[in-house]
């Protein structure tokens, strides 16, 4: 199949934008204006190109599409290819990344004043890395993107962040680095096992059961930090609170999904036996994450921190769905990740709107905003309800599918997760009541302005998508379903054949024993 190298184009076009921004000369205001314009137009073009991926996507096959392959490191036994491709699982993550980059650049239009050029460069580089992660079909390539993400994010938090930004940036970087270097060793071990760094080869390889456990744990170290799962989640509240609004949006919207994506893409299909073996652990960690962080969220006084903790809870649902390992649950997990990508991104933008006006995220400083900001109250309400999982919004679809799927595996886990739905409703509604309802008591809130047209334009696509995904999820589920079904079938087959093998192992010696006795 010959076609444009569309994936490479989507991945690396942002770097062309970076090159243009770097050439911008003149005084600071001119450079800043040019940087903004170039960054926005680049990201819009990239987004439009990525739409073409969806349009041209064949929903009837689980194979990788838009595949590109080129030789990269050719010498020696350790040959690495440049191999890109997407399937139903990765398609929407690419779109999510490109969409959120556009929104982030638009959202930072007037709020970032210092070092605008560097800011825009960071976001475009970040976009390349994010898209690359979801497209890479070679482990080394994947790892380059996976770790490369840290650099721009480190700078974004550290340069444009809040008061404790340095602490948060270091914590973010070192935590995630520690996880990912362990997965590098696992990748090398996979290479020696399969003889190739190709992800497709590894996906179809049957790893020995003992090795699966070790490799699973090494990958787990890296993905669990990214998701983040309890108890390695502590970097997240710090990073979220200190990052600038757009940084939080990308963190919550895309970076957390890298962990979930890793579990679906690698851990589950490559190590089906280990996944089965560790499912109780994963369920336990997920349940703790969901319940514990919901309670923590309830106690927060900082809006961003509250949403950060709610993110951990929602991602707990995702990991639960993934390791329930049936078609409904995994589809639900993917949809939940997409939905959370949109909703949490939107919620951080919602917080950003009032933060830009009052420069505080303290919940007690607000109240009665509905009077002065009706449009804002409406937008906030929709996303808040989507986060709670109200039917008709995207949040419902994912959570429902995950609960249905998990119920088939473990009713207890399903029950624990369902309690979190109630808790989720509690902290979100509580937040909404305190910020939006009531009467205005503070003077600076009396003349607060409602959403500007720019802000409305940013929220509009998110609003449409959240409702679309809630009312007619099939447009999104169709591409996902084929890939997920294929994945789940393979996992099932592997687990069943292993079970059969172990039965034979038990039966055969027993028979041998009986025959010797009879003799």
């Amino acid at each position: 199949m010959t076609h444009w190298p569309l994936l490479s184009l989507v991945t690396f076009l942002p770097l062309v934008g970076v090159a243009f921004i770097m050439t911008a000369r003149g005084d600071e205001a001119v450079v800043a204006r040019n940087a903004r314009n170039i960054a926005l137009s680049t990201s819009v073009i990239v987004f439009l190109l990525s739409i073409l991926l969806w349009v041209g996507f064949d929903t009837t096959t689980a194979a990788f599409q838009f595949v590109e392959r080129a030789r990269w490191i050719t010498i020696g036994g350790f040959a690495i290819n440049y191999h890109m491709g997407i399937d139903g699982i990765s398609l929407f993550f690419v779109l999510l990344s490109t969409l959120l980059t556009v929104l982030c650049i638009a959202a930072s239009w007037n709020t970032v004043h210092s070092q605008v050029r560097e800011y825009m460069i960071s976001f475009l580089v970040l976009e390349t890395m994010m898209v690359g992660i979801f497209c890479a079909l070679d482990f080394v390539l994947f790892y380059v993107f996976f770790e490369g993400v840290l650099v721009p994010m480190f700078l974004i938090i550290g340069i444009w962040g809040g008061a404790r930004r340095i602490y948060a940036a270091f914590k973010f970087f070192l935590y995630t680095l520690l996880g990912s270097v362990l997965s590098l060793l696992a990748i090398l071990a996979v290479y020696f096992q399969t003889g190739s760094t190709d992800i497709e080869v590894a996906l179809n390889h049957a790893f020995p059961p003992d090795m699966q456990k070790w490799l699973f744990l090494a990958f787990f170290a890296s993905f669990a930090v990214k998701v983040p799962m309890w108890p390695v989640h502590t970097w997240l509240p710090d990073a979220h609170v200190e990052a600038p609004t757009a940084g939080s949006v990308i963190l919550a919207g895309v970076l957390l999904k890298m962990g979930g994506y890793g579990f679906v893409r690698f851990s589950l299909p490559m190590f089906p036996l280990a996944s089965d073996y560790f499912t109780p652990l994963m369920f336990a960690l997920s349940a703790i994450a969901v319940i514990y962080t919901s309670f923590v969220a309830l106690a927060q006084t900082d809006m961003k921190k509250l949403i950060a903790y709610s993110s951990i809870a929602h991602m707990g649902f995702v990991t639960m769905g993934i390791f329930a390992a049936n078609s409904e649950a995994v589809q639900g997990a993917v949809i939940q990740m997409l939905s959370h990508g949109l909703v949490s991104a939107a919620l951080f933008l919602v917080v950003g709107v009032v933060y830009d006006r009052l420069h505080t995220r303290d919940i007690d400083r607000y109240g009665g905003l509905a009077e002065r900001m009706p449009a804002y109250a409406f937008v906030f309400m929709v996303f808040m309800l989507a986060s709670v999982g109200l039917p008709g919004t995207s949040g419902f679809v994912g959570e429902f599918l995950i609960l249905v799927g998990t119920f088939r595996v473990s009713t207890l886990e399903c029950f624990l997760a369902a309690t979190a739905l109630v808790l989720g409703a509690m902290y979100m509604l509580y937040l909404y009541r305190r910020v939006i309802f009531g009467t205005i008591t503070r003077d600076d809130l009396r003349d607060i302005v409602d959403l500007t047209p720019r802000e409305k334009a940013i929220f509009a696509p998110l609003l449409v998508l959240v409702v679309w995904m809630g009312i007619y999820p099939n447009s999104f589920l169709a591409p996902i379903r084929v890939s997920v079904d294929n994945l789940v079938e393979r996992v099932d087959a592997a687990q069943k054949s292993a079970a059969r093998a172990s039965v034979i192992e038990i039966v055969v010696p027993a028979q041998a024993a009986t025959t010797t006795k009879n003799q």
Partner: protein
Amino acid sequence: MPLLPAPDLSPALPEIALVCAAMALLLVGVFRGDGSARLVSWLSVAVLVAVLVLCGLVGIERRVGFYGMFVTDAYAVFMKALVLIGSAVSIILALRFNEEHRIARFEFPVLILLATTGMMVMVSANDLITLYLGLELQSLALYVVASFDRDSVRSTEAGLKYFVLGALASGMLLYGASLIYGFAGTTEFTELAKLFGQPTRPSTGLIIGIVFVAVGLAFKCSAVPFHMWTPDVYEGAPTPVTAFFSVAPKIAAVALFVRFLIEPFGGLVVEWRQVIVFLSVASMVLGSVAAIAQTNIKRLMAYSSIGHVGYALIGLAAASPSGVRGVLIYMAIYLLMNLGTWAVILCMRRQGQMLEGIADLSGLGRTQPGLALALGIFMFALAGIPPTAGFFGKLYIFLAAIDAGLVGLAVIGVVASVIGAFYYLRIVKVMYFDEPLASFDRPLAPELKGVLLVSALLTMLFILWPDPIVGGAELAAASLFAR
């Protein structure tokens, strides 16, 4: 047939040419007087480049000269190329600095040429005697350049420290060599390889001899616990000399270390592996942890170089072609990153004063974005973060470690690299997150700018075409195992 046939000198052609050129340049300097430093420096660079070409012409097939005492093969050519590049760039880096510190004397490039000759002999050593000869030729020249700023107490102290401790290490090495001779009856690597190339049970005396030589070599490449001189000498020596120390002699010492253990004693890997593993772990951990508290960037780079030697030694501990390949790739990339970093450090001057504090870099991202970007790239590369070249260095090292079953060592390595990332990031933090101070003196010296630009670009773009270095290293590593 004559009693003593004329030795075949052709394998040593580059060394002979280099030493002759060094003498000629010494004469040029003497006749032209004090003002000739710049001329002699550039001529030295030209000589080094010419010798590099000559190395290529001598070829990569294995040839032995001087009755088996001297060898040239692909491995030697690869390492010599790195050493020559390191020396040439160091001379270029020193130009401006020496002029401004009134130590611009023609002896400097000549001494570097002589040290380089010693290093090339080390790389090509095929006999314990040649090994010692090269090592001492190198060291004597280095002791002098360390205290080249002779009116500065710091510099002379550095030179003296280096001399005293270096002499001790040389003594140990010599003692080890004599033990090896006593217990094996030969000093020639080829003969030793016949005895110990296959797994055998060696005598304890021989093992002690190997360990003593290893100690001497560990000192020269500043592996823990023989690293004590490194931070002091790096801090005290004039900055361009430190830059030189951190690349060329280190690469030569690592090259010698690898050849010494792999070629003659390849069969005794079980015996010496634990020593190397210990040196490696200790270097990585100390290099990462001790660097955290440093405030002087030269000291920081000293600890960083200790850590990097630890990573390179992982490849040696693997004792396989892929391990040696990893070492070679690692050293090549290390050379690249280090030269760039030192070029930035040499740009750190305000009102004619050289600065060495990490805090002096505050806000460089705003005052000099280009310089800050370059240093940022080098720091991420030294930390081994993709997509920079530094990542690939680590990748090939860990690849070899996993292949050799040294999983524990690899895990310690990656954990140490995360700790190490902290202090590299601290420099990025100082440059980008802290409030700016006054800008550094401008304009930057054009030669520094050139070195900066080339090394930054190569560090970033290595990912696009890694084949030349990887392929060269593959060939070189294979030549060490082909017998």
